[in-house]
């Protein structure tokens, strides 16, 4: 019986992803046996998707080497095949996948490096927005400051790690020619990834500063953000941290949630 278009396409996809040979009954031999023709698609699909992952995760790729990255990508593609014709989101599950990937278990910092690279990727593709204009804060009376919620710029992403991911990221950038050693015991790290114009920048944050921005990202107001920041860093200077982030354009606006 002749396969329907749907059956043919299902057999084709299984032929690529699961290496099933069901499709072969519907293929003609050409210059080569049909199975060799199908193999070209297996190679192309995996090569293109591996390239797409490599474009999002160049540091992970560099850290593990091209061969291991190919092995990792192969497993990831089978487990998390793309769900849309726009491959921007295709690599989103890689950090969690790496964290659970037994062969990479010895590289404890790898999942966090992957998270940093995904944050960079998201920041690069996020919408732009005008920064908060400091003068607009002047219209807010001091007694309601605690009710203000600052909006982070759409490209802002926050991360924390037990490993020095920023340093790992920096020494693995193309053209880096400084001292390449990384002290893996350098201590916990909190990062802000954000885009200014067309440039994505990664900055290190203090514990209080991170807690404050995290609270804003979660929709909490300044009063709650201050409590959170002081809890992790008793000497935290809230006013100075806010001024700094207004100046460096971490915020795109604010709202009062008292009404």
């Amino acid at each position, binding site marked *: 019986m002749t396969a329907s278009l749907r059956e043919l396409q299902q057999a084709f996809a299984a032929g690529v992803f699961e290496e099933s040979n069901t499709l072969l009954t519907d293929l003609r031999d050409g210059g080569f046996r049909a199975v060799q023709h*199908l193999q070209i698609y297996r190679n192309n699909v995996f090569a293109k998707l591996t390239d797409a992952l490599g474009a999002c995760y160049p540091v992970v790729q560099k850290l593990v080497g091209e061969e291991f990255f190919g092995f990792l990508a192969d497993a990831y593609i089978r487990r998390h095949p793309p769900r849309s*014709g726009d*491959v921007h989101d295709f690599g989103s599950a890689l950090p969690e996948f790496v964290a659970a990937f037994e062969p990479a278990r010895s590289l404890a910092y790898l999942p966090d490096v992957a998270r940093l690279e995904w944050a960079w990727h998201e920041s690069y*593709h996020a919408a732009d927005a005008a920064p908060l204009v400091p003068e607009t804060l002047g219209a807010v009376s001091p007694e309601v400051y605690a009710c203000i919620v600052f909006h982070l710029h759409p490209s802002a992403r926050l991360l924390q790690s037990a490993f020095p991911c920023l340093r790992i990221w920096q020494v693995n950038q193309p053209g880096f020619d400084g001292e390449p050693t990384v002290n893996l015991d350098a201590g916990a790290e909190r990062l802000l990834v954000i885009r200014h114009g067309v440039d994505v920048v990664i900055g290190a944050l203090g514990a209080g500063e991170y807690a404050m921005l995290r609270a804003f990202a979660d929709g909490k107001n300044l009063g709650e953000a201050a409590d959170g920041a002081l809890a992790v860093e008793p000497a935290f200077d809230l006013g100075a941290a806010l001024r700094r982030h207004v100046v460096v354009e971490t915020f795109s606006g604010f709202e009062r949630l008292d009404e």
Partner: protein
Amino acid sequence: MSPCQTSRAANPIPVRAGIGLRAPHHRELVESRPDAGWLEVHSENYFGDGVPLHYLERARELYPVSLHGVGSSLGSADPLNRDHLRKLKQLIDRIEPGLVSEHLCWSSIDGRYLNDLLPLPYTQEALDHVVARIVEVQELLGRQILIENLSSYVQFSQSAMPEWEFLAAVAERADSGILLDVNNIYVNARNHGFDPLVYLRAVPAARVREIHLAGHTVKRYDDGEILIDTHSARVCDDVWTLYRAAIAHLGVRPTLIEWDSELPALSVLLDEARIAQHFMEHAHDGVAA
């Protein structure tokens, strides 16, 4: 005319040679503003709101732009991906492209995407299906689209007509334009053993609004060779010859140099475009001589 159009290059894609714009060339292109007739980009690369779209909008102020889709999966037996088409429509509204094109292929089934341009069997069922889908997409987008022929590495036993007959029938029935990829005709002619001139003569000339040119790779085995459409090299001599035959037969059309992997310097693409431009300007010399 709306005010936002005033700073833009004219909308129609001119009958000149253009180049495919890829991210590594974004900055250089908008800063150096080289002489290129027009630009084409992969639509999906600009579905985000970030840096790539920023550069595309700047490029659009300088050049006519065409949007070329690689992920609509027109021939899939799955329902159309409305979310994808909504993003494409948004991009069209924003960029106001001179041309919008998609591939005569499928790339997903059961919601799983292979991220590749996969061939259809040339059957009545596939023809009816893809025609209905193109009609639906053209309605959703509110414009005619061009459909591009692709390179393929398999042949289905079910196919009841040659590729050129399928392509012509799709375009006629869906009332779409054709984006004729001359390199793909050459690759398929070599891989599947047909005369590329037979293909060319069967193409309805009036529907061809654009031509693509690219380089391919010859993969050699002990028992033969196969051509892979890698878009990773200069256009080869045989494809230039076929291109000259195409424009002699169809008439000159906006022609694009595509390059996707192992991307060279922007100047190499411009150099290839100059060759195409030269052939366009001398399209009738061979006939006269």
